[in-house]
């Protein structure tokens, strides 16, 4: 297997607070690495350093051999890392097409002037979502009218459409009902089967064991342990998360 992402000694200090210290791990193609940990353990800070939101204080993240840490979120995204944040990162008042293309809108020419190609982007969005088995009842509607699961699917569809090689998901099932949680877990499996690497942040133990190929437990900003699901059990993970 080829290594997609390599985090080496990622460290972040905010003023006097040591949020993350010396976190290292690897993600391979088609592999789902779970970052598990209690609130405040530094999971979100780790992925934000990879996604370009925060520059690391020390250490680096390499994606396919190139350093991505310290770049802008846009550069990281263009390199092939799509991040799906907890707050979904959708623009609620825009339709599915514009959300799929946000920041990289398609344009066409009208009387020599560039105009945004809404219809074409909308059709692309419908196609991508249909391939994921998701029906969009009203593609013209702003995405705020959609259910939590549909919105999560749009965010994942964005990753698929832009052919992301690594997808980072921050608590993707946190705000969802049980059937929608299953749909999202099925989408994760589908991404893995296509060779996409995944970093999943979660503290939902069933999700961790269902999707994870490796589990990295963070406690107070440091790696407390790394386990494969078949070698461990829920009690051990909880004990590590609690810092025991």
């Amino acid at each position, binding site marked *: 297997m080829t290594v997609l992402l390599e985090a080496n000694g990622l460290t972040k200090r905010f003023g006097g607070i040591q949020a993350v210290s010396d976190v290292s791990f690897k993600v391979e193609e088609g592999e789902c690495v779970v970052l598990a940990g209690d609130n405040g353990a530094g999971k979100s800070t780790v992925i934000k350093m990879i996604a370009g939101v925060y520059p690391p204080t020390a250490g680096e993240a390499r994606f396919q051999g190139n350093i991505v840490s310290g770049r802008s979120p846009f550069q990281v995204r263009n390199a092939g890392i799509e991040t799906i944040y907890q707050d979904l*990162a959708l*623009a609620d008042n*825009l*339709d599915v097409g*514009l959300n799929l293309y*946000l*920041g990289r809108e398609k344009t066409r020419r009208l009387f020599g*002037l560039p*105009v*945004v190609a809404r219809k074409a982007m909308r059709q692309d969005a419908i196609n991508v979502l249909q391939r994921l088995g998701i029906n969009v009842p009203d593609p013209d509607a702003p995405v705020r009218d959609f259910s939590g699961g549909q919105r999560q699917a749009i965010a994942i569809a964005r990753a698929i459409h832009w052919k992301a090689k690594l997808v980072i998901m921050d608590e993707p099932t946190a705000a969802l009902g049980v059937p929608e949680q299953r749909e999202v877990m099925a989408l994760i499996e589908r991404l893995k089967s296509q060779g996409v690497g995944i970093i999943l942040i979660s503290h939902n133990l069933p999700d961790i064991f269902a999707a994870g190929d490796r589990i990295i437990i963070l406690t107070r900003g440091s790696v407390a342990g790394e386990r494969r699901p078949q070698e461990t059990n829920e009690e051990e993970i909880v004990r590590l998360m609690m810092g025991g």
Partner: protein
Amino acid sequence: MITSQGASWLKPLLNAWSWLFLALILVFFEVYARVETGQTFLMRAYNIQAIGIAASQILLLALGLTLVVVAGHIDLSIGFTTGLSAVVMALVIRWFGADGGWPVVILAMAVGLGAALIVGVINGWLVAILDVPSFIGTLGTYGVARGAALIVAGGATVSIRSEEARSFGNGDIFSIPVPVAVAIALALLCHYILAHTRFGVHTYAIGSNRASAERAGVNVKRHLMYLFIISALTAAVGGLVYTGRFSAGAANAGEPILLYAVAAVFIGGASLTGGQGTIVGTVIGAIIIAVIQFGLVFSGLPPYWQFVAVGLVIIVAVLVDQSRGKLTGGKLTGGTT
């Protein structure tokens, strides 16, 4: 679900409410005029022209403001940006003398726009770079622009005698008054920017979810800076038209129009929370206010009633906006499609 079925026919109705409202007040004033005076209100060229000019004054302040509001901000300084550019234009013409002709008038306009540009850049710097809430930041520049205009004007109206400037404010282009033609041209430009360019889509995205726009690679700070500059410049055009129309620049040229401009934007479907609003809506909003203004004068009511009427219309607009959300189970866009 029953509610969602109800929503299917209510949605377009509520989205079109400003059109309906405009039709309603036109019918009202037409009937009133015929019953009271036996004359027509709408079929007179003079009335149409007067409403057109009043609407264009409001629109010149409201166009740029619409873009700012869609991005989730507000620009209160525009009322006095208008006055500042009006005074500056008049002073430049006075400085060079009335004999300078078009070159001097055009130079004066450019300097007037330049003065507004400074206000726009300061607004953008306060809001985008220093993260000052736009309501407070632009309230500050409102005071600064007002003071600056009064200081450079020496506290008085700056009258000029320039035939060219006068013809800019009072002439016709293809039998359309110049102020109306200027407002139409700027409205088309702003509509193109907001509805059909990536810049416009990013404006809605910033108003909907600033973080998502940032993560998608939109340079939000630079974008906000541009929006406040556009807002100051359209307001400044209003000032240039004012100086032309009245052959004088006044510091308070835009002051009475500020409330109307804000009202036009919100009647047109924009929302204080951002992400909503269209130029078409703002144009209808401006026409509604102009019709109320002129209609009340035409009806012989004391002119102060127009403040009451416009205030009531703003409240109705906000109530309609809220009921849209309640009736359809979610807020609607003001037609971003």
